[in-house]
C-alpha cells in the first residue's frame, strides 16, 4: 500500500472513531429561533438537501414552502405565498448549514419546535422538527388548514410539553434505545415502531409530572403513541449530532452527510469539509398506497438519509425484514443481503449497534467514497414517496440508490485537495 493510501486509511480510522464514539442525548425541545440565530432574521426558510432555489424546487417542496410561509404569517394565503416566493421575498438555505436536518421537504422556520440532541462526547448539538404523523402533512408537501392547525398544536402544546419533560429528566440517552430497537425489528428509517414505544416509555412519567391539565396530557400521549414514526425525527437529529464531529478530518474519504431536496442528491465528505457534491436525485422504487402509482411519484427528498450515513436505515435492513416487504424491496430473507452489500462500501462495524440476525455483527458504518467508486455499489436508502404535486402528501414507500456521480465528484475533489491528479 502506498503512503497516500495509508494516510487516507488513517484519516478514515479517525473519522469513524468520531462517528461511533458519540453519546447522543435527547435534551430539549425549543423554538427554532432560539437555537438557530439565522432564523431570527426576516423570512428565512431552511429546507432539506443541498442548496436549492425556488426556480428548481419540485412540487411538494413548493407546497411546503407556501404552507410554512402562511403558517409563519409571511403571506395571507397559499397563492400570496407562491407569488412572494417567486419574487424572492424568502431566503432558502439548507438545514445542514445550521446544524439541523428535516425529513422530506424538511421545512425549518423561526417558530417551529425543534428536537435538540446533544452529543455529550464532543459537546455539539443538532436539531430536527417534530414528526407530524402520517397522512397529509407538511413534510410531504401538504399545506391545507388541517396541516397548519397541526403545526400550531405542535408549536403551542406538544413541543413545550416534551421540552419541559426532557428538562426535568436531564435528557434521554439515545444509543441504548437504538440498540434495543435493532433487536426489535426497527432500522430507524422506515420502521421506528419499537424505538417510538421505548422513547414514550421513558418520556411518559415525566410528561405526567410536568403537565397539569389531564386532557392535554392525554392528547400528548395519544399523539406520540399512535405515530409509529415518531422516533424517526429523533434518530435524524441524533444522526446529525453523531456525524458532525467527523465533518472536518483532513484526507478522510468518509461521508459525513447524505441528503436530497427532490431535485438533487448531495453528499459531504470528511476530507473536503462542507463542500457539497451533487447529482440529480433518483426516483424511489417501491410500493404505492391504493389509488396511486409511479406516475404520481416525486423524485426522492429529505435529510433523513443522515440515518444511513451513520449505519442505520437501508444499512441496517437485516434488523428489519418487515421493512423489505413494506418498501417492495424483495423477500424478508433478502434483508441481510442489503446490509451485507453496504458492508462492501463502509469502513467499520459499529459494536454498539448490532443485528441479531447477523450473529450480532455491528451495523456497517462510515461510507468510504473510494469503495463506492471502486465497486459501483451505491448506498441504499429507505424512503417515503411523496406525490409530485403540491399539497397531496405521501403516496408510498420504497428504496432509492444514491447517485454514483456524487461519489465520483467527491473522490476527484478529495484527490485534488490532497494534491493527487
Amino acid at each position, binding site marked *: 500500500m502506498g503512503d497516500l493510501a*495509508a494516510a487516507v486509511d488513517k484519516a478514515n480510522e479517525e473519522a469513524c472513531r468520531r462517528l461511533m464514539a458519540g453519546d447522543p442525548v435527547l435534551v430539549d425541545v425549543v423554538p427554532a429561533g432560539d437555537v438557530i440565530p439565522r432564523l431570527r432574521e426576516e423570512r428565512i426558510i431552511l429546507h432539506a438537501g443541498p442548496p436549492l432555489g425556488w426556480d428548481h424546487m419540485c412540487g411538494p417542496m413548493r407546497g411546503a414552502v407556501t404552507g410554512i410561509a402562511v403558517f409563519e404569517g409571511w403571506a395571507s394565503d397559499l397563492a400570496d405565498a407562491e407569488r412572494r416566493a417567486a419574487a424572492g421575498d424568502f431566503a432558502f438555505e439548507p438545514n445542514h448549514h445550521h446544524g439541523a436536518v428535516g425529513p422530506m421537504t424538511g421545512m425549518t422556520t423561526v417558530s417551529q419546535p425543534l428536537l435538540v440532541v446533544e452529543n455529550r462526547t464532543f459537546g455539539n448539538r443538532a436539531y430536527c422538527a417534530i414528526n407530524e404523523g402520517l397522512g397529509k402533512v407538511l413534510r410531504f408537501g401538504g399545506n391545507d388548514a388541517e396541516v397548519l392547525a397541526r403545526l400550531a398544536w405542535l408549536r403551542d402544546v406538544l413541543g413545550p410539553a416534551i421540552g419541559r419533560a426532557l428538562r426535568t429528566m436531564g435528557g434521554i440517552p439515545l444509543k441504548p434505545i437504538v440498540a434495543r430497537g435493532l433487536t426489535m425489528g426497527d432500522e430507524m428509517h422506515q420502521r421506528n415502531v419499537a424505538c417510538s414505544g421505548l422513547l414514550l416509555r421513558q418520556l411518559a412519567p415525566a410528561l405526567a409530572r410536568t403537565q397539569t391539565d389531564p386532557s392535554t396530557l392525554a392528547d400528548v400521549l395519544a399523539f406520540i403513541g399512535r405515530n409509529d414514526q415518531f422516533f424517526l425525527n429523533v434518530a435524524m437529529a441524533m444522526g446529525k449530532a453523531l456525524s458532525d464531529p467527523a465533518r472536518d478530518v483532513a484526507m478522510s474519504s468518509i461521508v459525513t452527510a447524505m441528503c436530497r431536496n427532490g431535485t438533487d442528491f448531495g453528499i459531504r465528505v470528511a476530507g473536503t469539509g462542507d463542500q457539497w457534491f451533487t447529482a440529480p436525485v433518483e426516483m424511489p422504487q417501491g410500493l404505492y398506497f391504493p389509488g396511486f402509482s409511479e406516475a404520481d411519484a416525486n423524485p426522492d427528498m429529505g435529510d433523513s438519509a443522515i440515518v444511513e450515513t451513520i449505519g442505520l436505515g437501508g444499512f441496517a435492513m437485516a434488523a428489519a425484514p418487515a421493512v423489505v416487504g413494506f418498501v417492495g424491496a424483495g423477500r424478508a430473507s433478502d434483508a441481510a443481503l442489503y446490509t451485507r452489500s453496504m458492508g462492501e462500501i463502509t469502513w467499520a462495524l459499529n459494536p454498539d449497534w448490532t443485528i441479531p440476525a447477523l450473529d450480532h455483527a455491528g451495523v456497517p458504518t462510515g461510507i468510504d467514497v*473510494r469503495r463506492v467508486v471502486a*465497486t459501483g455499489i451505491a448506498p441504499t436508502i429507505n424512503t417515503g414517496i411523496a406525490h409530485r404535486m403540491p399539497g397531496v402528501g405521501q403516496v408510498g414507500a420504497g428504496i432509492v440508490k444514491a447517485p*454514483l456521480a456524487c461519489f465520483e465528484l467527491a473522490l476527484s475533489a478529495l484527490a485534488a485537495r490532497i494534491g493527487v491528479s
Partner: protein
Amino acid sequence: MTPPKVCALLCAPLKVINVGLETFAADLAANGAQVQDVQWVPPARGDAALARLLLRLGA
C-alpha cells in the same frame, strides 16, 4: 481421445462462476448448467482517470 483434464471439465456437469455480464449466467442457467453469478463491474465504471485516483488513494 479427449485429454483427462479437459474431460474432467467437459464430460462432467458444468459448475460455473460467472464474473461480469449477467446474461452469460442466464444463458448457462437456461441450458441447465449450475451457475453462480458474481456481481462485478470494472472499477470506477471503467473511467480510467478515476481508476488512476483509486490506485493512488487506495480502496
